[in-house]
Every structure is written in C-alpha cells, then in structure tokens.
C-alpha cells in the first residue's frame, strides 16, 4: 500500500502554502501571474494539480491558467534540477561564443535542447536571453549566482565541483 499522503492533514499542509498565496492576493484573477510565480517558488514547478487548484480557486478555466503558464518562459511545468544553469544567449554573449559553453555543458551531462534536465534531477541546463550583464559576456547563471566571461572549461569545472562535493558528502 502506498500512502502518498499520510492523511488529509498532510495534504492540507501540502496545499496550505498555495492557500496562503491565494489569500494574499485575495483570489484576484488579475493577479494570476504573481500568484503563479509565488506558487512556483514554493513548489519549484507548476504541477497539474496545483494549476487546477489555482484555477478553480480563482474561478477561471484551467485551460486559461495553463495557457498563461505555458506562455511565459519562467514557468516550469516539469520539475527542474537542483542546479539550474542558465546560459545567456543574448546578442553580446552570442557574439562572444556562448554556444560553445552550452555544448560543453550538454556534452558533460548528456543533455540536449530537447532534454534539459538530468534524470537524477541534479542539473538543468537552459538558455535565456540577456541577463543584463552584457559587459561580462558570455554570462552564465547557476541558480542565483552570476558568472561572467565564462569559458567552456570553467563551466564544466563547476559541474565537476558540485559532483565532487556531493560525492564527498555521501
């Protein structure tokens, strides 16, 4: 028997955070985007049930919420890795050959444009357009940390470093 949630109490807790966010925005349908942003911060991604929950609580069709969630690049509909590498592919970074970094990361992790998260949910590699630090091109974000004037070897080294630390911790 799999008990996904011990009891309702557990599930209520699971959704309590969403309830709080909904309350904070007064269940105002026009606040859908900030609501989804905060919900995503809580859960790391927007799952089907959370989207439905938000939709019905705001009294709007789930299709509409899903439509909004899939329109904006910042909303993740699948879980992402623990470490999210965001490689800038803005103009400045592009002319400074940011794609070679991307490919180095893809190669190191066995990822591609179609598969951006490793199966163990450790790493996600994605591109973004301009992080606004063009003077440092090429620029990369690892979670919240900004790395400027990155070289492919350095990017790969960050991964190795994380893996080594994870191994040491075990």
């Amino acid at each position, binding site marked *: 028997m799999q008990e996904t949630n011990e009891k309702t109490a557990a599930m209520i807790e699971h959704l309590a955070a969403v309830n709080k966010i909904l309350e904070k925005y007064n269940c105002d349908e026009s606040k*859908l985007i*900030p609501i989804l*942003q905060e919900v995503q911060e809580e859960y790391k991604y927007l799952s089907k049930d959370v989207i439905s929950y938000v939709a019905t609580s705001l009294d709007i069709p789930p299709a509409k919420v899903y439509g909004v969630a899939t329109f*904006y690049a910042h909303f993740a509909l699948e879980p992402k890795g623990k470490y999210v590498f965001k490689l800038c592919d803005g*103009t400045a970074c*592009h002319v400074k050959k940011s794609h070679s970094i991307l490919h180095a990361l893809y190669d190191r992790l066995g990822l591609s444009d179609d598969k951006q998260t490793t199966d163990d949910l450790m790493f996600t590699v994605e591109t973004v*357009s*301009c992080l606004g630090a063009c*003077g440092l091109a090429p620029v990369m974000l690892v979670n919240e940390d900004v790395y400027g004037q990155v070289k492919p070897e350095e990017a790969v080294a960050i991964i190795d470093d994380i893996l080594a630390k994870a191994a040491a911790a075990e």
Partner: protein
Amino acid sequence: MSNKILSDIKAKYDEVVNNSVERRITLCAGTGCVANGALEVRDALVKELEKAGQKAVIELDYEDNHDHGDEKLNYVSKSGCQGFCQMGPLVKIQPGNIIYTKVKVEDVREIVESTIVNDDVVERLVYENPATGKKSVTEEEIDFYNRQTRVVLENSTIEPDSIEEYISKGGYKGIENALEMTSMEVCEEVLASGMRGRGGGGFPTGLKWKFTLASQNDKKYVICNGDEGDPGAFMDRSVLEGNPHSVIEGMMIAAKAIEADEGYVYVRAEYPLAVKRMNRAVADAERIGLLGDDILGTGFSFKLHVMEGAGAFVCGEETALIASIEGKRGMPMPKPPFPAQSGLWGKPTVINNVETLASIPGILRDGAAKYKAIGTEKSPGTKTFALTGHVANTGLIEVPFGTTLREIVYEIGGGVTNNAGEITGEDFKSVQIGGPSGGCLTPEMLDMPLDFDSLQEVGAMVGSGGLVVMNNETCMIQVARFFMQFTQNESCGKCVPCREGTKQMLALLDDIIAGEATADTLELLEQTAHAVKAGSLCGLGKTAPNPVLSTLKYFKNEYDAHVFDKSCPANECKALAKPEIIADKCKGCTACKRVCPVNAIEGEVKVAHTIDAEKCIKCGACKEKCKFDAIVGV
C-alpha cells in the same frame, strides 16, 4: 510647507555627511560587479578598514547626533552599474576621485594600506587603455567615460537605497515643481523639451501625455516599461538598479500630467536586483510621504506597484504588457485603440520606458530649454547604449544624440577587436543597432550622426539601444539568423505573418547557411520579409524582418557567396567550410595531423600536409593547432 519635507531631508543628509564622513568609498554593486564579487570586496573593505583602526559604515545613521569628535567615518556605499562592467568590480575613492578596476578581495588590504592610510595610488589596479597603454587614475581621465555626456546616468554613483541622498542631489524637485503647475502645463513643458520616447519608437513624450490627459476618465494609469528584452541591452536595468527614485519621480510627474493616481513598474523577471531596489525605493518614498495620498500636502495622490514579468520579450510591447499586468497571456492587441484611450483595464494609460521616465525629473527641475540644448534639433537629449561585441571597451554609455558611430566605436569603445581580442585597426565590419528590430550599419556610415530619424532612413533604429560591434570574422547571415531565431522564439504566436513567417525565414536562412539555397530561396526570403513587415499585428513582427532586410541590402555579396559560391567569407558557416592547407606555408610539423579527430590529414614530417575533403568534418581543430597559419577555409 511642501518644500519643508524635502529641504529638511536634504539638510539632515548634508549635516550628517559634512559632520561625520571623511571618505566616501563607492563600490559598484550592479549585476555585473556583484557577479564578479563586489559584495565580498565591500565586506573585506569594511573589515580591513576596521583593522586599520578606521571607522567604516555601509549605511548612514540619520538619528545619530554626529558628535564624534575627530573620529570620522569611511562611508562604504554601493552604486548601480557604472557602465564599465567589463572592468568590474569598480571601487571609487573620494576625495581623490580615484577609480580602481577589477578589484579582488586580495587587493583590499593593499588599497587600505596604500590609498586610505598613506594616500598612495595602487598602480596595478588603475585602468590601462588597451589601445594606447595609457593609465588613468581618475574617472575623468578614462576615455571610456570622458567622451560621454551623462544626463540620465548623472547620479549613477549615488547610493540607490538612499532616498536621502537622491533628495540631497535635487531629487523630487521636479515633482515639487510639477505639483505647482497644471496638468496641461506639465505636458507642455515636456513637449517643449522635445523629449522622445526611449522605448524604441521615439514618439514625443509630451504629445503622448497630452493625448492621455485629453481622454476623459475617472481612473487612469501610468506604467513604466522596464521589460527591456533586447538581448544585449541593459540600460534600463542599470537605471532601475542604480537610481530607482528617478524612475519613481518621473512616474509621479507623468501621473500629475495625465491626472492618474495609480501606476505599475513592470520589471523583467531576469532582473531580480532591480526588483529589489525598486521595492525598497517605493517603500522609502511611501515612508516619507512621497507616494500615497495627498502627497506633499497638495492633494495629489499616487499609488505605485512593482510587478515582475515572467519571461516574454513580447511583453515589452505596450498592449502585451497591459495584458500581462491583467493576468493574461501577453498577446498584443490591435491598435487603435491606443493605451492613451483604452489601456490597463480599459482605462486611459500612459506607458513610458524607464529611460524616458528617468529623464523627466531633470526637465521639470531645470526646465525644457536646458534639456533641449543637448542632442540634435529633432532628437534632443542623450541616449544610453549598451556597447558590446568586438570592441575593446564594452559597457553602458550615454552620449548626446547626434554623436557619430566613429566616436562611439573608436573613442569610447577604444576600437574594434579581432576574435583574439586584439586591436588591429582594420577589423571593423558592421554595427548592429536596435537589437532584433534593428539593422546593420556599415563602415560607410561611421560618420553618420546617430538619431531617431537618420537611423530610420538607413533601415535601422535606435530601438532600445543595443549596439553590437562586429569584426571581419563575423558572418552576416549568421547575424541575421541569430536575430531571426530570437524573434521566432519570442513571437507570441498570435498573428500569421509573424508566427509562420519568422519560422519560415529562419528555415530559409538555415538553408542558406547549410549551402542548400538557390536563387529562389533569396527571392522567397525577401518577399516573405516584406510581407511580414507590412502585415504583422504588432511591432515585433513588423520589425522582425529588419535584420534580414538590412543585411540583404548592405551585405548582399555575402548572401551571394553563400548561395552561389557555396562559401562563407567569414568562415563561420561550418557546412560551407573548405579547409585547405597552403603548401607554401606548411612546415610539415604534423601538429594538425595529430589533432584531427577523423584522420583527414595526410603528410610526412617536414613535407606539406593535405586535407582529404571527403573525410573532413570541418571541426576546425587543425586550424587552431597550426602555428604557421597554413590552414585556411575553416
């Protein structure tokens, strides 16, 4: 009475600074410098100063009674981006106006010991011009800075989290003046300044306000467009991060001008620091009573919200931005009706760009005439550009309209670099201006004064102000492709020409790059570009073909080379590469042979090598290895 609030704050600030601050050390804490460790440097500075027996604070205390005897403070403040991120973290020390570049935590002790304690300059941290080798101790001596005219960025070194400092520098004087005028007078003043919107279109701001003022409604809104999506531009970010109060003040003036009482600052999601600084600034302004009800006792009320975008370039388009604030998919709506008639929640709305709004307080403070004196007749004022690409000094610059490309690229930018980063003086190929909506400028246009109209004439545009310098090793088809890929990704998908057209144009460019194109491809590409430009619903689609059309116009020969000769003059398109060893230059060192992953190179030691074109996968590894430049075409 109203003056009193602001003058009290100014008096208090001046008192604190005069009485207790001996030295001001300003650390650039913009995104770029923070990425390079600026905050660690700051912490180290405070620690080292204290070790050296100096008192250091990172925030001024206005409640303090300031009688510290002789013991004075080192005020270690932060600033927004100073534009020279490439050289960051930047540390500025006053008095002395010394500026140190690329400061690391390891350098801090020396700075304290030499400069702070002994008034000596640390030579190795001083900026050195890569082209001339000239060293500069102060900002005024650095070419990158001294050729600029800073209006919008004038207060780029103040502490962004201090409303007190902003006020002491004359901040909120503009709104104070505006509140004594009628709404129409405010509109007229801005109109007289000749101010044109910096969001790309260059529409006269005063006129836009007048239209909105004329729309009768009991509710109106002001929106600050901080979506800055142009990939390679970051001026709005630096204003939001470095001087958030100037934007708030600009919005208040706009609100006064159109009779609005509520506003939104829409900030791109990629700019968390800007959001943070903006939120802090709004809270401070509310605390002092500069936002809220009955501001400065004049009966004027203004409420301001900060909203974060969620990652969609098209939301920079005003109607899409409005949809996004309303919680919908950011899809543009046909215009008219313009937001001035029917905007946020159907109410008359003014949307202005960050830079536009940040320029407004100065106009209201110092008068339209002063503003109009800068720049050109039809494009007054200054423009910030993000100077990037193959240029020695990259960064954020501000110049008057009418400045030539040559001044920007060669004097401020310090010249064009080759792919190895060297300045040879003969590498300049093109400047791409205006981002994905813009176009390419050629060496012939180096002496053209840049303004809204001149750029429009040559098929480019000011756009947001992205300015990418490209050297001879750049393939212009790849440049066009890059922007097409961007617009294709960022198209909202609503209208047919843009959604389908960008997709197909991208595919046609890919055909060209892959060597699979014919004359028909070029014709279809051009036809499609014209149809998309004329037929699209919003500005994104209407301008998306510009990079293609402008490269087709100015670099037709490169297209022809790809299509008819199946060769890429810049050697960037792998499929068209034809690696070849020049027998005369080859010394037969075998370096290339050893590195080739597919054993495509043959040759004996000390004998000229050859490449088997059948086997070669055009990886370019051999060329990198050859010390004698014998390998070409890849």
